[in-house]
């Protein structure tokens, strides 16, 4: 069970959290202007990178807030977490051993 750093509550047990898919996929402001392909991509196409991945999480059984996280899919470990609306932090390479503490 990982320790996840909620940007609002600090480090908390993974049990309290819920994973909510890939981060930084904004809903198009005018969906009706989207072609079928564009809309299909928004709905269904997601990345599956080996390495750093930006994800949405929610502190479901804590403060209830959604937030974003960078996680290294090769180690499972979080590198950093940040509030919704903030840009994806520039982190290169792989997560340090053990990830965010």
């Amino acid at each position, binding site marked *: 069970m990982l320790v996840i750093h909620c940007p*609002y*509550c600090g480090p908390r047990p993974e049990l309290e959290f819920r994973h909510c898919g890939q981060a930084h996929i904004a809903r198009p402001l005018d969906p009706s202007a989207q072609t079928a392909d564009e809309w299909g991509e928004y709905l269904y196409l997601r990345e599956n990178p080996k390495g750093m991945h930006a994800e949405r999480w929610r502190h479901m*059984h804590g*403060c*209830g*807030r959604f937030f974003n996280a960078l996680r290294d899919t090769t180690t499972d470990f979080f590198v950093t977490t940040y509030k919704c609306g903030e840009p994806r932090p520039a982190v290169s390479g792989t997560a340090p051993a053990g990830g965010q503490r």
Partner: protein
Amino acid sequence: MSEWFAKSAAQAALTDVPEGRRWVLRGGDAALAAAGAAFGASLPAQAGGVARVAGTPRAALWLGPDEIWLGTSMDDGAALEAALQTGLAAHAHSLVDISHRNVALELSGTHAAWLLNSLCPLELTLEAFPVDTVTRTLFSKAEIVLWRTGEHSFQIVLGRSFRGYVSGLLAEVSRELAAA
């Protein structure tokens, strides 16, 4: 017998907290500030914070950055509700009465934290979870709001239909204390 128990006499008690009034206040900073004025104390701004109004049964619990629970006794309920409505009138906010949504249990005794840690994953030492810290968390499969009211006492606020489940689990866990 595990050596874990040998250290102190085992004891804990679970009781119902008398009915009171409780609201969820959600809103922006201005609304929360205005509500604090009506409430009688600045509302907690730090994660897990609790604000009390000295000499009254009023307590404000931080449950999220825009979610504060306000509670008081039945007797003080109407007065507080009126004050809040007046104080908040000029600010966009949501004030919802949840007095009947939840029930509260008081768990007290030297082994209160020990009982909770059977199925609650949080660290509950006084250093990590001081008196007047509150948070939503889990107790086994039930979501609870856990509020440390004293060194050896906690309020467990939970959905009213979960009362039997949570108190049943605590009773089951405490059988071991009775045997010790």
